[in-house]
């Protein structure tokens, strides 16, 4: 994705990308690190703005690091959300629900086919 295209994306999508990067990293990140992690064309100032907005909303917490801040996601105590959501959604099998899951369960054959497809595609 080109730099101009990234800068013009809706604010919600940028916030989602930034939060995802912070969760994936697992450690507090500075705006420069977030920018590098996203490997997109976002300007540092844009990243900083998004981080500040998410901090103001209570989605992120931050700590002093050098002359700026390092940010990390506010964690869910005891993973309660995960427990409750998985509990409700697991009752039905994968195949009998109106939820559109990203990936369905694989069979052993599927796994072989997928690994081969991944190897074949450069």
């Amino acid at each position: 994705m080109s730099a101009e295209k990234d800068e013009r994306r809706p604010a919600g999508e940028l916030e989602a990308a930034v939060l995802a990067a912070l969760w994936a990293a697992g450690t507090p990140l500075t705006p420069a690190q977030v920018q590098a992690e996203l490997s997109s064309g976002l300007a540092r100032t844009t990243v900083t703005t998004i981080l500040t907005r998410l901090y103001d909303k209570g989605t992120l917490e931050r700590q002093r690091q050098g002359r700026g801040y390092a940010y990390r996601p506010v964690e869910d105590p005891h993973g309660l959300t995960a427990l409750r959501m998985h509990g409700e959604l697991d009752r039905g099998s994968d195949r009998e629900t109106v939820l559109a899951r990203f990936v369905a369960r694989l069979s052993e054959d599927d796994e072989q086919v997928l690994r081969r497809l991944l190897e074949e595609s450069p």
Partner: protein
Amino acid sequence: MTIALLLVPLLLPWAAPVPARRALDRCPPAVALWTLAVSALLLAAGTVASLGALALTGLLRIPAFAALGELVHPLRTPSARLVLPLAGLAAGLLTLAALALGRSVVRQAAGLRSARSEAGRRPAAGDLCVVDSPRPDAYALPGRPHRIVVTTAMLRSLDAREREALFAHERAHNAGGHHYFLAAAELAAHCHPALRPVREDIRLATERAADETAATAVGDRRLTARAIARAALATHTADASRPAVTPAATSGPVPRRVAALLTPAARPPRALSWTAALLAACVLLSCTTAATGTIDLHQDIEVAQGEAAGH
């Protein structure tokens, strides 16, 4: 005659899965999705209308119900020995289908409601709701506003660009209203067992449609394919302790999606293939026979009520 007509819509859905599968293979996913969903709904409607008419025919042979229906003459039907068991069977099947459907609706509504309330309680970033969980999982959560729910394990198994492909895929589900198609598929599958494979095809069609939209959004089919494959493998590894729910002999939906993305996008649009024609013929025949049978029954009832002259 009426009875024979009413049996046709009950048999036709058995002919649907083959052309449905082929339509999915050949049409663009969005076209296939609409075609399959509309066909499945119409075939299901034909089934329900037929079962209803058959059950009614039997009921009106019973004197108490005939009186309730203000019948002054007996309803013209073939022998009661044929009609009554058939009607009983039809009524039983309708009841079973209604119960299964009702259970599914209640369960899914509860699941969705609780997922939405949990998602609402979490701090959000745009439409993204992150759930801290060691199990890779991601899904679109329809509602106002639409959300996408992704677990931390899923975020960690993908790189930044693959995550964008995943988000684009889930946003495509929400923007395309794919949950309505999935609900239609569920409804149809509960109405007639032969439509269950069509439900799987509709599910695959929604995924394929979202995959194509995501590939266009991130501008890279290969990247999208890799994101799906890596997400599926990560989920599979995390699932390894559980027994396989679907031991499939043929390759399942995920490899088909990945393979489709790895082949070039634009295939020349085919002329109306025989598969589409066959599917359309099934649907048309089902609707026509169900309608004709029901209208016939209605006329017979009016005759029996003494409202119309017998012919």
